């Protein structure tokens, strides 16, 4: 789950990372008031979960409260990469002398967290990684030991940070590490971390992604979820414990197991079709869950055919069939449906669906070919 800049920075601050004075506004009038309270120059920053906000015009400087109101009016009426701007952060503008990048993420291959620093802050770090990878200094953190003080000095040395800032920098490193660890983040990033003309080290931006699997122990963070970034169907799917991702094609898919769900999409494509979604009903899915999955698939107007591929293991074929029948009664689908059920209680499942006016298939290839033909109107 991605967090907004202001949310990330609040968490960083809790762990001792200095951030600029500022607050979030939802209206231009509020923005003006906050700017007046702060006095002097402020930055008005769109709070939207997309990258490249600055380039898209979502970050503006304002010299007076009146200007802050104007900029906020503009920004609050924007859409950035399709997402509406509902909040702006009004931060005191810093006098920037130097911009640094500092971040922590999981290094999958090393199976450890990796902390990265670069003197090339303020720009896209992926771009730095591509063009000048030697400018990114990395240290791996032992998950049992945690970050060590010498490692922060290694980073400071690696990015040629003047010695007078080491202590402040080290404090930020530890704060970021604690924020990452205690929030179960998969990414915690400050870009840029600035050294101000006054000699302060300050996190003027912040970004965090928190592990969805760990939200059960962070109810405070779970509440910060911004539903704007997700398709409504995806939100609905999560309520039922379904894993659903909307795609652009016209063949709706309902599958048990993530690997098999991806494969079903691949085989549809292999035979000339386009999947409308990824949907994993998970292991041991109940009839109720299956019915919810079915409703979600059919709520998408693009769907011209549905392919149901169930390989029973923990999931039972008859249970899935009952869910499908219940959902069909409720939503009365007008599109052709192809069902392939094998494994645990498959015979019973097939028997239940026999009277439901469904196209049946024995193998995945057979099912995919029939679904592709059905979506093109060649099979009903």
């Amino acid at each position, binding site marked *: 789950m991605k967090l907004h800049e202001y949310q990330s920075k609040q968490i960083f601050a809790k762990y001792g990372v200095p951030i600029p004075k500022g607050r979030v506004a939802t209206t231009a009038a509020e923005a003006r008031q906050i700017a007046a309270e702060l006095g002097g120059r402020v930055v008005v920053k769109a709070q939207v979960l997309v990258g490249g906000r600055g380039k898209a015009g979502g970050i503006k400087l304002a010299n007076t409260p009146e200007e802050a109101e104007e900029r906020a009016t503009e920004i609050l009426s924007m859409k950035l990469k399709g997402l509406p701007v509902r909040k702006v952060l009004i931060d005191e503008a810093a006098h920037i002398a130097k911009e640094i990048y500092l971040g922590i993420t999981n290094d999958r291959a090393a199976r450890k967290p990796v902390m990265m620093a670069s003197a090339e802050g303020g720009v896209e770090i992926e771009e730095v990684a591509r063009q000048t990878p030697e400018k990114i200094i990395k240290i791996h953190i032992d998950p049992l030991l945690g970050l060590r003080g010498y490692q922060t000095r290694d980073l400071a040395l690696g990015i040629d940070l003047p010695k007078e800032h080491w202590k402040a920098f080290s404090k930020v490193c530890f704060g970021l590490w604690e924020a990452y660890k205690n929030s*179960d983040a998969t990414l915690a990033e400050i870009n840029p971390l600035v050294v101000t003309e006054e000699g302060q080290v300050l996190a003027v931006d912040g970004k965090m992604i928190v592990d969805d699997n760990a939200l059960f122990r962070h109810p405070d963070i779970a509440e910060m979820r911004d539903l704007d970034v997700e398709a409504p169907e995806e939100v609905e799917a999560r309520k039922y414990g379904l894993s659903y991702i909307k795609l652009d094609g016209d063949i709706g898919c309902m599958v048990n*197991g993530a690997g*098999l769900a991806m494969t079903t*999409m691949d085989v549809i494509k292999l035979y000339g079709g386009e999947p409308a979604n990824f949907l994993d009903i998970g292991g041991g899915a109940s009839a109720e869950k299956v019915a919810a999955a079915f409703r979600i698939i059919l709520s998408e107007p693009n769907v011209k055919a549905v392919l149901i591929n169930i*390989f*029973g*293991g923990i999931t039972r074929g008859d249970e899935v069939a009952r869910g499908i029948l219940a959902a069909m009664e409720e939503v009365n689908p007008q599109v052709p449906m192809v069902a392939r059920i094998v494994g*645990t209680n498959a015979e019973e499942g097939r028997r239940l669906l026999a009277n439901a006016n469904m196209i049946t298939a024995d193998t995945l290839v057979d099912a995919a070919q029939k679904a592709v033909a059905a979506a093109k109107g060649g099979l009903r």
Partner: protein
Amino acid sequence: MSVLVDKDTRLIVQGITGREGLFHTIQMVAYGTNVVAGVTPGKGGQWVLDDKIPVFDTVKKAAETTGANASVIFVPARFAADAIFEAADAGVELIVCITEGIPVQDMMRVRAYLDQKGSRLVGPNCPGLLTPGEAKVGIIPGNIAIPGNVGVVSRSGTLTYEVLYAMKQLGIGATTTVGIGGDPINGTSFLDVLKMFEEDPQTEKVVLIGEIGGTDEQKAAQYIADHMTKPVVAFIAGQTAPPGKRMGHAGAIVEGGEGTAAEKIEALEKAGVKVAKHPEEIAHILNTL
């Protein structure tokens, strides 16, 4: 012959009195797996399966009393990392974790700890292992595979069943199937299992079932190119997956342009691996080798 599990496996089930744990214990016992004990904290002293299997409060007690050498974990995600630590501290050699949804930082600590301990972890978020005709540890349906000479290793669950089933249709059997799991940090990699299959005299061919995310398949390809004498057939799921979207498994995501199906397929083909276009084709390719 087989790898990791066989008829000499003496198994503990952690979470044996839970819904999933009990259901699959019945299945494993029916298959012929030697389940010697169960563990559920607070339920020590009880018995399950018509008083055939004793339940203990701790893994240590269960292992000491029964001489168990393996454990399978069915406990909920929030307690699963602790269950792995407990099994490792009790000296269990093989720990198989079925549980899905363990926080990734928990798994990083588990891996770092296990590396010092000498226990082998398979999973988490995996279907477990099946040595057809001998033992099943986990949730792979026993009736979809027959004994044979093909070693199968996979990051996925039901996709593995699909492949085993397609193999069975053509009369092709397996030595052992190892589900390594769909999480970004797991206990056993493709590479670890390929080494075992290369050394197992009865395994003559190998099937590798990968998916998008990470670079485990690429490392496997390098090992195959450098060290493997046995033919390998592969399938990679997620060729149509859009970047930046997590496809169900926590580990199945294309990030920063890395971990795509295309780069994995390319690496494997370069290593001389035949890559199937769909799972059923794996069985047909095996027949030509």
